[in-house]
């Protein structure tokens, strides 16, 4: 865990954060999100040089399923 870039998506109190260096672009988070608010983000590449994740945080319900499934702790949803 050398670098620490942060991508933050906020909506009022809701904060959805991604750490691109940790993201291996597996897509599991997109898959498990019950609100389907996550999608590929071609603009920032992850650990393997592939797209990371962006969040349509407005519709996020803070269920944290994405954070929990992420094998690489690349997502953090504010408590």
């Amino acid at each position: 865990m050398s670098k620490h870039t942060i991508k933050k998506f906020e909506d009022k109190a809701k904060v959805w954060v991604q750490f691109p260096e940790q993201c291996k672009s597996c897509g599991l988070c997109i898959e498990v999100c019950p609100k389907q608010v996550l999608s590929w983000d071609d603009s920032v590449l992850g650990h393997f040089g592939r797209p990371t994740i962006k969040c349509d945080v407005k519709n996020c319900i803070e269920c944290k399923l994405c954070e929990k499934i992420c094998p690489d702790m690349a997502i953090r949803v504010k408590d």
Partner: protein
Amino acid sequence: MVKNHYKILIAGEGGQGVQALCHVLTRAAFEADLNVVYMPNYGVEQRGGVSLGFLQLGKEVIGFPKFEKADIIVNMRDRAIDRVSEYIGEDTLYIYDSDLITGSELRDVSAEKLAIPATSIASSKLSPAVFNMVLAGALLSEIHLLSRRQVETALEEVLGYKYKQKPQLRNLNKKALEYGEKLAREAYEPVGRKR
């Protein structure tokens, strides 16, 4: 680089298609009736570990599947920089994906370098998946024993089953090779490098 024999080291990370690329080039060399030996070299990680391909092709007898110094290195990954450094010789040409490796990371690399923005070209013009074929194109432009057509034929054989499922891949690969060759040519001409 005009030689009658090439020692090529292709490096990257597991999952980037290093070995697939070697496979295709080996097949092409074989079809071109060249002597060729390709040896994959990687650790236990199925993805992510440094992945190397030692490829020797040309007209000389190949004594051992590994070599000490490469004529050409193709590096796809910053994380492979350290590992390939011992294979850099006096005349080594260092081709790399300048989207995944920054020039400054190669600061200490003394070899002659050829920066190819393979990922960005592939992503913007073709498909991110074929970035390695862009690098292959650049490599090809340096190997005077193999033609693009031969590589395309090899691709046909190696990826035949994939082409059936995804016919558009054939054209993407073809284009990627072309882009690579073109980028390599352009990269040189301005500085008038001896080829």
